[in-house]
């Protein structure tokens, strides 16, 4: 699939404070990309750059073939967005809010109504006539999602899109994401909800120290060994059959036939003088959460 979102070595600073450095990213059509990172890591800044609300200091950005900062109408008509603030006009009802948004996007009232009927009829917001300012946080988030998916754009930039959603609304949100992906849209979801990222995203980018490193979900490390970071241990792990060996607070690797290989590997490491603190099998389902939590944990520990 061709890339629909491309960032090439972008830099962003606010005054003297650098937020993103040398960041590159590619997201293909029909894919969901997860963006995680500590508070202040630059996730929202990256989304704002991709939405054309901020201008990169250096590097090239292309979304749907447009440079976001050019602010082309065609670009925005194909962009669905959820930002950290819900951005509703509180004095208006959800329908009035949607009507203004649809009109700006040149989506006809008939199409808007058809969209609402097809995808939101079973939800409480379909028949809601309250002003938005009287809605709960979760209801507002549902409304924000409803607005973002209106017109089925080609690119979605979703900043914490599942905050405050109840179980039903969350399931509905997942269905919408899958429907958008099936329609060939590219989605970037930034969230601290690792379960959500784990469930929905094919690829995951971790923003830390101003850089984006990518976690390839198709090459999941299956085992971890907690010890120091000496290169000698990497060689031993590889000799014992470990593949894709990485060190990120602990050694992580894939290994064939662990029942046979792990005892041999542990013996080899101990014999070589490695002080092992833990050997763990990582459940596939939790690997993203474990990896990110470990990275967060090591960073927080380092800072302390």
């Amino acid at each position, binding site marked *: 699939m061709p890339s629909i979102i491309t960032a090439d070595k972008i830099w962003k600073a606010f005054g003297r404070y650098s937020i993103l450095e040398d960041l590159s990213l590619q997201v293909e059509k029909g894919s969901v990309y997860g963006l995680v990172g500590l508070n202040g890591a630059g996730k929202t800044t990256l989304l*704002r750059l991709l*939405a*054309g*609300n*901020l*201008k990169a200091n250096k590097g090239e950005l292309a979304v749907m073939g447009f440079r976001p900062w050019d*602010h082309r*109408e065609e670009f*925005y*008509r194909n*962009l669905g*967005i959820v*930002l*950290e*603030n*819900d*951005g*509703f*006009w*509180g*004095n*208006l009802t959800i329908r*009035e809010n949607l009507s*203004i*948004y649809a*009109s*700006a*996007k*040149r989506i006809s009232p008939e199409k808007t109504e058809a969209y609402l009927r097809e995808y939101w009829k079973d939800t409480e917001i379909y028949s809601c006539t309250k*002003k938005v300012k009287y809605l709960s946080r979760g209801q507002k988030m549902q409304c924000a999602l409803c*607005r973002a998916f209106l017109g089925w754009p080609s690119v979605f930039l979703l900043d914490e899109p599942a905050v405050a959603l109840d179980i039903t609304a969350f399931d509905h949100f997942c269905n919408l994401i899958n429907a958008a992906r099936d329609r060939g849209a590219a989605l970037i979801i930034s969230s601290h909800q690792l379960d959500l990222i784990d469930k929905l995203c094919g690829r995951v980018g971790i923003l830390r120290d101003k850089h984006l490193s990518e976690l390839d979900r198709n090459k999941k490390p299956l085992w971890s060994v907690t010890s120091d970071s000496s290169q000698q241990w990497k060689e031993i792990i590889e000799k014992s059959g470990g593949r894709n060996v990485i060190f990120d607070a602990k050694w992580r690797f894939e290994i064939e036939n662990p029942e046979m290989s792990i005892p041999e590997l542990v013996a080899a490491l101990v014999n070589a003088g490695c002080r092992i603190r833990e050997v763990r099998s990582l459940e596939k389902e939790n690997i993203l959460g474990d990896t990110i939590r470990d990275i967060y944990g090591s960073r927080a520990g380092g800072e302390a």
Partner: protein
Amino acid sequence: MKSVINVLRKEWLCFKGSDKGVFGLYLILILSWSLLLGTGGQETGIKTGPLWLIFFSVVVAANFSNTVFISERVTGSLEILITSGLSRNSILYGKMLFVSVMSIVIGGICLALGLLWSELIFKTGGGHADSVDFLIYACSVFVNVSNSAYLSVRIANPRLIHFANMFILAVIIFSYMALSSYFPVPPVYLILVLLFLGTVFTLLARREFNSERILQPVIL
């Protein structure tokens, strides 16, 4: 043009949806100001006219500007509006047009009521302000609106915008009055100065609306 009308419609809907108290406040403002204009200075001893109208324009236009330019930045709805496909210029012009129209309509109502009160209540034989004054009022609304649009991004502190508007218009009107005391200065010069300033602030606001600063946090 269609985008400007879209913004205008949005602003009108938001205003229409305001709490009833807001309309009550405008009613009080209109009544008190029209009574002041209706006296023609005879009841209160305060001379009304262009100066009052200009300061009234600060009250009305800056009040609308606060809602239209600042509160949208606070709630984040401006960012949504920008990402909806409306050009930043049409958002600026739509908002400016809305505030200008509303301020001029309210000023017009004040003047008309002022005339009515002067005939019915104060028997002063017509309000003090005339059509030239109203034109000056409309031009000072233009200065207020454009300056508010510019400063709402540049200063990002709504309290200071009122002071800035008041200060700028005070400097203009007092300069005009000071000059008038030495030799006759036709009001057309005052109108031209106001129009020139309004145009300069509009161009500055346009530049700000197309910059990153428009989406920076507002200090309340």
